[in-house]
């Protein structure tokens, strides 16, 4: 990705990556994960509400059909990828907890 080094001329010194604001880095990571989680919940809800509205308006799928549906191989693979992305989004925060206090 892009070059991370910066070269400001004077001014207010800018803080480094991943500053710790709370009492210890684990608290910061916890808040970050909570925010990510909230974002992911919203993302899901937005999609589901859209989907359900579409399905309903077209008279295509009844709700309990979704409940009982068993994914085929293609969908199963996609779900796995999406799950990895979901986990990465939230728990990438763990990599940012530094070794030293």
């Amino acid at each position: 990705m892009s070059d991370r080094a910066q070269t400001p001329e004077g001014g207010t010194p800018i803080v480094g990556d991943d500053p710790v604001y709370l009492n210890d880095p684990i608290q910061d990571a916890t808040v970050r994960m909570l925010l990510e989680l909230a974002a992911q919940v919203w993302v899901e809800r937005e999609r589901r509400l859209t989907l359900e509205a579409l399905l309903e308006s077209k008279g295509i799928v009844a709700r309990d059909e979704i409940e009982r549906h068993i994914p085929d191989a293609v969908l199963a693979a996609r779900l796995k990828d999406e799950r990895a992305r979901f986990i990465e989004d939230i728990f990438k925060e763990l990599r940012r907890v530094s070794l030293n206090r």
Partner: protein
Amino acid sequence: MSTTPETLPPLARRSDAAYLDFVEGLREFILGKGADFEERLNGALERTASSRGRPWGDVEEIREFVHALPLGRLRDRLARSQQEMKWHAIERSFGEQRAQLTAELAKWDERGPGRLLLDPAFVHPAYTNVHFHLQPGGYYKDELSGFLYHYGTKVFFRGDNDKDELHAKLVGTVPTPSDGKVNRILDLACSIGQSSTAFHRRYPEADVWGIDHSAPMLRVAHRRAAMQGDAVNFAQRLVEKTGFPDAHFDITFAFILFHELPPRIIDETVREAARVTRRGGIFAIYDFTGTEGKSPYQRYHRWFDARHNGEPYSQDFCDCRLGDILAANGFEVAAAPLAKRAGGTGYMQHWFATRV
């Protein structure tokens, strides 16, 4: 009225848009009335000052007080996170479409009606190498910087600028020179050209130039203007060394540029603006209000923004007296603060300076 084409490329997925919509709402909540951090923290600061019978001194004293409060530290954590989340989502979503977006830019580089002048030998001065507002790669180190910036500012303005309304409004309030002559306009640090095209629409007969040091910004500016059919020219130049002839422009404009320049360059840029603006012409500036008269919390927020939101020069800018610098360089200044926008750092003011 013709509808303007959408110039902001779509994100890779619907879920990216939903994620960023969430961040926009979160931002509104944290910086505005939702969490009400500003009122509560400022209240604590003011009560403390009055009970001890001494106003707040330097910002370091305010910082110590805010950081001793769990609420203050949590606010900082949240303020930093919403910015990081925004860039994380935008960078990944556009990054996944890197090949198409790069090709898309190349497709428009040579098209009109306006011209795009890039300088392949351009050297970025070291002071410009800052990741302002934590944008990954800053303004110029990623070829997609212009697209990242466009989406980032869309979220920043929280829906108020989705159709460049804010740019149109600010450009619309710039006074016309008293002799009525507007043949040439210069938009300093035009980024993706939203003010430049607004000027073109306001003065369709004028020759409008937008300059910026960032080629990725200018390519997006050019593509956007070309898609909209706006005949605006863009060139890769420094604001402190524009390369235009003396007294060339009737209006020179700078929207939220100065707080991102070190003091030395602020001086040079005002001098350059005085050189290229003709007598009787207008130099119109919109930027942050000064430190004077700020509440203790607003002073804290300025410091936080400088240190934790990649704005190293903003504190010095707010502490300087831009009006005096303009006056010392041959401008006559009328300044008035703009109405306060709810939440955020958006306390802006304008300086409408006439070249004498």
